[in-house]
């Protein structure tokens, strides 16, 4: 069993709390109407919101629209969001709901063609990357989303449940099923 399965922190250990604090400050500045506060929120959260929406929807277009929806709502009610205790999880929950709303409005896609992961070195996706993306595309959207939130957003199962609106047990179950299926698809021993 690896660190992620046991609930230990992900690859960016120590960063989550720091982002939480900086995001809280940026949202407070946004509520005060300070210049540059919206940009600060973008720098801290846009990549995570975009990736979450992409992993959930499987569509770059939906992901971009979901991020836009989150920032528009944020700009409309900055005071309300600045009072949230856990702003990072709250913004992720906003992106989750925006993505689901878009999927409902636009209907199901036929096939997922998106790259959920790209090489960190900037090189084109090679065979290994294609295989990994195909395995991720084969997962149910909710399970893929749970993997993203656990591994990349570094949320606890309780937070994942809060973000996606399901009980903690369901969030953990989705993650474990996703891991089992990824192992089977990629031919990796447990």
């Amino acid at each position, binding site marked *: 069993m690896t660190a992620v399965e046991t609930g230990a922190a992900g690859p960016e250990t120590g960063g989550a709390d720091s982002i939480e604090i900086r995001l809280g400050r940026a949202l407070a500045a946004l509520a005060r109407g300070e210049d540059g506060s919206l940009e600060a929120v973008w720098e801290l959260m846009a990549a995570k919101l975009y990736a979450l929406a992409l992993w959930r929807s499987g569509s770059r277009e939906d992901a971009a629209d979901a991020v836009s929806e989150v920032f528009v709502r944020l700009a409309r009610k900055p*005071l309300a969001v600045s009072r949230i205790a856990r702003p990072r999880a709250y913004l992720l929950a906003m992106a989750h709901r925006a993505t689901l709303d878009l999927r409902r409005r636009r209907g199901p896609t036929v096939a997922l063609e998106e790259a959920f992961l790209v090489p960190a070195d900037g090189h084109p996706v090679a065979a290994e990357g294609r295989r*990994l993306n195909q395995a991720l595309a084969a997962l149910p959207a909710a399970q893929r989303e749970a993997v993203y939130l656990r591994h990349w957003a570094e949320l606890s199962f309780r937070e994942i449940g809060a973000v996606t609106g399901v009980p903690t047990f369901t969030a953990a179950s989705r993650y474990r099923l996703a891991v089992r299926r990824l192992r089977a698809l990629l031919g990796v021993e447990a």
Partner: protein
Amino acid sequence: MSNEFFAGFHPPHPPPGLRERVLQAARTAGARAPSRPLVGRVEWALVAAALALAITHLVLPSTSASPWPAAPAPGQVTSITGDPTVDALLVAEADRWEKDHHRRLLVELGFPEMTWEGRSRK
């Protein structure tokens, strides 16, 4: 799991141009959003309702006369129904028990013909 799976990969970043488009849309939406008044409509409605209630309470005369007859006292209930109240039953039962107890005590002491008041039954 996934440390070994995902090593060397990361989720894609937002596409170029999205930042400007989203921030522009957000700024426009923020500028259009009406500033929320300190006290909203619901709060005003609650305050008005509370004030109306208080004024009504002060202005209207308090009427103690009830249109319904007052409930009878326990003694009256007995006179109306003819049945003893629960308390009366308990008192009678206790009285009977006490007399039996005294009579048994006199028998044990060797004075079966006496009553508790000191008079002989004969």
